[in-house]
């Protein structure tokens, strides 16, 4: 179990969090690679169905940020 890594799907707002994730790269910060980012135009676009679909597809966590 110690090697278990959660799989995380994130929905990031184009204007803030997605840009922040880019800046994390510019700043060469490091974080685990078990995250997949889906860019959305605004967190207002986020639908509960997206979170459910991600969980159904095997994600262990869904992160919405904006």
């Amino acid at each position, binding site marked *: 179990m110690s090697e278990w890594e959660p799989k995380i799907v994130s929905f990031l707002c184009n204007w803030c969090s997605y840009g922040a994730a*880019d800046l*994390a*790269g510019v700043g060469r910060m490091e974080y685990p*690679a078990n995250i997949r980012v889906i860019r*959305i*135009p605004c967190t207002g676009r986020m*639908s509960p169905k997206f979170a459910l679909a991600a969980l159904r*597809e*095997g994600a262990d966590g869904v992160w919405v940020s904006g």
Partner: protein
Amino acid sequence: MSEVKNIKGKVGNFEVEIVRHPRYVDESLCIACGACFEKCPKKIPDTYNQGLAKRKAIYVEYAQAVPLKYRIDPETCIYIQKGGKCGACKKLCPTGAVDFDQKETTQTLNVGSVVLAPGFKPFDPSGFDTYNYANLPNVMSALEFERILSASGPTTGHLVRMSDGREPKKIAWFQCVGSRDINRSDNAYCSSVCCMYAIKEAVIAKEHAGDDLECTIFYMDMRTMGKEFERFYIRAQEKGVRFVRCRVHTVDPVPGTDDLHIRYVTDDGELKEEIFDQIVLSVGMQTPPELVELAKQLDLELTPGRFCKTDPFSPVSTSREGIYVCGAFQGPKDIPQSVIDASAAASAAGEVLSAARNSLTKVPEVVPETNVINERPRVGVFVCRCGVNIAGVVDVPAVAEYAKTLPYVEHVVDNLYSCSQDTQDIMAEIIREKNLNRVVVAACTPKTHEPLFQETLINAGLNKYLFEMANIRNQDSWVHKNNPEMATEKARDLVRMAVSKVSLTQPLKEAELDVNQAAMVIGGGISGISAAKSLAKQGYETHIIEKGERLGGQAWNLYRLPSGDNVKKRLTALVEEVEKEPKIHVHLNTTLASVEGFVGNFKTTLQNGGAQDVLEHGIAVIATGASEYKPSEYAYGDDPKILTSLELDRKLMDDDDLVKKAESAVFIQCVGSREPDRPYCSRICCTHSVHNAIELKRRNPDMNVFILYRDIRTYGEKEYLYQEARKLGVIFVRFTLEKKPEVRVEDGSVIVRVIDHVLGVPMEIEADILTLASAIIPNADEKLAQFFKVPMNEDGFFVERHAKLGPSEFATDGVFLCGLAHYPKPIDESIAQGRAAASRAVTLLARKKIHTSGQVAEVNPGWCSQCGVCVSVCPYSAPTFRGADERFWPEKAEINAVLCKGCGLCVASCRSGAIKLKGFDNDQIFEQIFSINEAI
């Protein structure tokens, strides 16, 4: 990296001499990969982080820098300082961008007008020996503390003390360090921003460190006179930030610890001692000496505080015609005011140049668009190596190989640098040759490079929306460099997700719409006429709609400005100028009966008595002003000696007997402002009363003048008035909200009773004139708000697009805002905002046509259940209901593509699933989600 050395010539034909310092990096070649930075051996204090962290001699100042290009600091670079003994960056740079041979160059620009925005330098507190800033690491400047709180700062936002890395439990802020101080600095003015930023820092510090962090702010007057600032101050008090009114003299180290000991006196005269873990000095703004020197060289007049001198009726014009000023060089100010000034200066500079507008434009060649509708997707995938930036971590050939196996993928290439001009040409060629109809670029980030690659698609004859990026650099190789396998795996997933999304994209159309070139300004007060004047001078037919009988508004009620200007005289001249302007059409005694349409195409019905008239216009400026609160407190109305501020102005104008015969005058501040049911500061009343107190003292030096106040808020260089008033013997008595003064009228005398804040005993003053500095209350016009679908806050002021960055416009396109309808402000700031609103409007009018984005929401009217959620949630007023009498789909919702910003709020909110967001539609996002499962 460039400096202005001199400006010769005059308005319309300036010659600006510019010295450009060498970057030692070729901007056209640098791709900001950071290889140089990693290998540079020279570590020096990081100026951006206020010296709290280290950086290298080759650097970008901060992550958000534009352009994102490295530069070499010649003062510290080993190669430059020691004659060629290093050059590691040059050897390592994959694009050969490092160029030690670059020299300083001089350039002369020929321009018609100039805007100065050189900013300020924070005050350096090293000279205050009693604060021990230079010696004690836990005494820091507010800017240093900002970096400690910042996620991109030296401690990544973790709140610790610099001396020992321990989390502080008690922090104190000292206000007015290098401001309002002629003792230890030369800065007599108030820096306007420090009270607010200290409160903000205290609140954020508590958010970072937890509520048990004790924050104390030591201040003289709390100056939260900006929009929504007073509420923030109240909330900070509720959150437990302690406010102590005292200017602390000395900070002593506590021997054997890194703690700090201070002594201070409380309001009731008690001497207290306290120990803090950390002390933050709220340093003020000042004009740096080199800027004072430049101003001298450019022949610009400065104020006593060494800011650029301007006239209140032309607040962004310097003493030299054609040279304009904005920001903190014009006077200490916060972000919203700087943004307002910036727009106003742009407008002023544009007025001079309006004749030359569009005389140097070039029209790009348009490649006809290929029709790909109903074609099977043929996806081209371009995987970028970005030198070693991606390829050094991610196995790019493996990702490219993998991409070939994905559905609909026809062609895959890996590029060394996808963004280089020659690669762009090759990509366009490949798109045409392989007949590709969808493109994926796996490279850096769409935030910076999507427009560039879309341009390539357009050049290849493809609709630019048939494109998707996979972010395998910023969000992959750069952040997982120690895990190449996982990074490669992630890159595969990101490419697959992008391919599955792009296969479902359709070409999108960008609608084009003509912008009616006429402007309408609602409100003929000073901000409205300033906006109109500016619009007309830039060549636009402008209509001023004024409900009253004449132009000028509230300003007619004012006597003199703090500058000494006679308002009536200046205003008369301004109104005459406006009335003579052929492009300005004044509609007096006129109101709005209805407004139809939207940005670029408004149709407004004007009502003048019984007559109606229709006006078509492209933009609207709301300048509906505010009025004076008529007090219900302090016995107002019971005696003719009790006046409001404007009534006193009238008496001063008329040289009334009341003023002539008065031997004592009392002003009571915050009448109706900063009260529980009106929790905002009216911003101008302190200055107004102090100025009138001086006027009374000038007319009769023997008059006893008292100002009863809570905090004196003479911000910026208005502070000099406060000093002058005290010098002239005006007596300032402080009171609190809990213990307000009492006024009674007794046998024809007006008696004011107040508790003296020094002695703590009640005193009574017989006032021959009692002036109530009453609040400014907005003309909260619900109907107008509904006409233009613009919001109002709970106080009745209109809500701008963005409190800091969009103060003179609304979120609804084509509608702009200025003057008192936005927030109380003095004449100079009203004029600046009038011009700012005009400036923002011209950015729209000058385009003549609006191009909408293709990525907008669209309603399927057959599925619409008319619930109205989309209409109510949209911040941009894009959805509306069709008319009941329309032939097709009556009363169903529709979305105006011109107003839609593509946020998708309506899409997610639509109960019936009737709204699509083109470019980010459900099927596309679901397809991305579905293609994740192989991945994770």
